[in-house]
């Protein structure tokens, strides 16, 4: 039997000898030992077989001498046995293990955002210039009553009606749950700071609340997941809201696993687990085997936080999502967070990531419509996650019925992530998905914070421009306003699930 490793490299590294000055920046930056300096030859050599395509070397190369290319080695064309499947089979034949991947589902399923187009005003009502007129993105997340009792006389509603605690967002975009542990402390700090600076919220994920992030608690949603890592009453009260994580779009029905070698002193302290032990989040919450158990947990958390903080419940977008969401709202959740199958992760079994769940567009449309049919849409806010790439996606999601969106990958990309999907190796060359001190220091929180803030500000400007174009100057008039969406290239069935008209209608 052939001993040789059957998997051929994904990439080749091309070095332009005309440009290379042998400065070895690439050598120093690659954690995968792709580049090597040969003292005798006084020359840098590259071996693409370890290259993950993260572009760290190419980005830092002062002369642009490096190009990373897909390995041209081609298999005989076969629509069934694609190169990816062949490689997976070879790998598995070597290792017998479960195939792992990072980030979100990369498969070529349709992206429905790209099949929805936005509206704009012409003649019959004026578009609004956000640079001249107020344009309001302020969003409140949380349970709202159906009506406010009015004392009639003064013409102002008396506060007989007590509005439950709300999260106030300056921009309807939040950072989705990314735990300290799955990403570096620098990355976590940058997210928290950026959230504070832009008036939105970050999310601890199941990583607990590190002492350096505690100061930003007012802009953090603290998560309670099946492992209960880092959870105590102080933790619950340190955040602005509490999120119960039931599922995650990248791996619905699957738990989490942070390998022991990543659990250093700081992480063990933050997660409240022994250093060096694997952090295993069970697939289910072992105190939630049905909806009424969820209700108990929701109210337990409300009690623990003196009813002062909204409780969110996050689920993966699965087939029956609308009914599940309705149950969650009726169980007392103030926010329902739905994570589509394109949502990212630090590590997931490839088969799960690529084959489980449904598109967030459908999940959102179904949930919003369902809650409205049941007349309980006011009782909870809908936050959607999973593959939001740009401000237009955000506008479309809000028009479809979302109160706000979570971005994960987009935020990481803002910090430098090149979506190489190797998060699970812990060798992130960009210092994001790693705990290796040599790599983590590559992410300067000051720089990362600035980049995140810039991204959100840029998106906010674009959202305002698009709203202005529709003649809308307050985000609540966009929310659920499907009149401003038209479908292109969609079947009648898809249109009816999304409950939008086709372009031209």
């Amino acid at each position, binding site marked *: 039997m052939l001993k040789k490793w059957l998997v051929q490299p994904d990439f080749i590294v091309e070095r332009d000898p*005309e440009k290379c*000055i042998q400065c070895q920046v690439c050598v*120093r930056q690659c954690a995968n030992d792709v580049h090597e300096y040969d003292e005798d030859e006084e020359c840098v050599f590259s071996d693409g077989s370890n290259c993950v395509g993260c572009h760290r070397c190419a980005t830092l190369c*002062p002369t642009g001498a490096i190009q990373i290319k897909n390995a041209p080695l081609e298999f005989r064309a076969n629509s069934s046995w694609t190169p990816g499947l062949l490689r997976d089979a070879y790998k598995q034949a070597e290792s017998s293990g479960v195939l792992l991947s990072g980030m979100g589902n990369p498969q070529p399923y349709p992206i429905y955002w790209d099949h929805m187009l936005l509206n704009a005003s012409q003649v019959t009502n004026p578009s609004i210039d956000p640079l001249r007129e107020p344009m309001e993105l302020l969003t409140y997340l949380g349970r709202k009553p159906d009506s406010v009792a009015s004392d009639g006389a003064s013409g102002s509603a008396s506060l007989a009606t007590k509005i439950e605690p709300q999260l106030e967002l300056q921009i309807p975009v939040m950072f989705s749950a990314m735990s300290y542990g799955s990403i570096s402390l620098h990355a976590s700090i940058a997210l928290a700071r950026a959230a504070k600076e832009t008036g939105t919220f970050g999310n601890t994920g199941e990583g607990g609340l590190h002492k350096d992030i505690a100061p930003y608690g007012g802009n953090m949603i603290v998560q309670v997941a099946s492992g209960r890592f880092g959870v105590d009453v102080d933790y619950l009260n340190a955040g602005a809201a509490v999120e119960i994580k039931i599922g995650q779009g990248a791996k619905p029905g699957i738990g989490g696993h942070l390998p022991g070698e990543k659990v250093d002193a700081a992480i063990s302290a933050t997660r409240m687990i022994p250093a060096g032990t694997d952090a295993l989040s069970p697939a289910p919450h072992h105190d939630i085997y049905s909806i009424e158990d969820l209700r108990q947990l929701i109210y337990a958390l409300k009690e623990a936080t003196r009813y002062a903080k909204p409780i969110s419940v996050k689920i993966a977008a699965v087939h029956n999502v609308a009914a599940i969401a309705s149950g969650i709202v009726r169980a007392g959740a103030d926010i329902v967070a739905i994570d589509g199958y394109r949502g990212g992760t630090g590590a997931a079994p490839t088969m799960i990531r690529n084959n489980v769940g449904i598109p967030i567009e459908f999940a959102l449309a179904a949930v919003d419509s369902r809650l409205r049919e049941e007349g309980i849409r006011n009782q909870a806010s809908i936050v959607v996650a999973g593959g939001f790439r740009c401000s237009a996606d955000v506008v479309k999601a809000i028009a479809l019925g979302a109160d706000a969106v979570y971005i994960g990958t987009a935020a990481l990309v803002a910090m430098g992530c090149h979506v190489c999907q190797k998060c699970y190796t812990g060798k992130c060359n960009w210092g994001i998905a790693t705990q290796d001190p040599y790599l983590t*220091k590559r992410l*300067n929180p000051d*720089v990362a914070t600035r980049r995140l803030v810039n991204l959100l500000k840029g998106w906010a400007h674009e959202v305002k421009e698009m709203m202005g174009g529709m003649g809308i100057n307050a985000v609540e008039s966009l929310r659920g306003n499907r009149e401003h969406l038209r479908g292109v290239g969609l079947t009648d069935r898809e249109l009816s699930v999304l409950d939008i008209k086709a372009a031209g209608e």
Partner: protein
Amino acid sequence: MKRIIAREEYCLGCRLCEIHCLVQHSKSKKLIKVFRSEERRAIVPGVQVEQSGQVSFAIQCRHCDEAPCIEACMTGAMHRDPDTGAVICNQDKCVGCWMCIMVCPVGAIRSGDERHVASKCDLCMGEEVPVCVANCPNEAIICEDDDE
């Protein structure tokens, strides 16, 4: 005056600062050209990255308020620029006696092999910010102006 501050907690050890410093102090200031030419050997970067294991940082002249190199310089080549307050070595005056190297506690002054004169950071006079600061990909070298 301008002060360059190294933040070792963010230094990548990529040494881009050294490369750009070298280019900045070359005649052509063209990166590839400089590295291809012999000129390269004649230039001693004013910034140098020190690395040991996972710790690294870029260090260049501190432009000390009380600069021992100026006191030790017998030719007057090493002087404080009256406008910027930077400690500058006038290489036309320097005869390479190495007194400055002997007394610099930072080890920021170096003796060129090609040219027999002391080389050190000149804060990239004329530039908005020193090139090592401008080109640090991680802001591990920052420039602070401490005149209040």
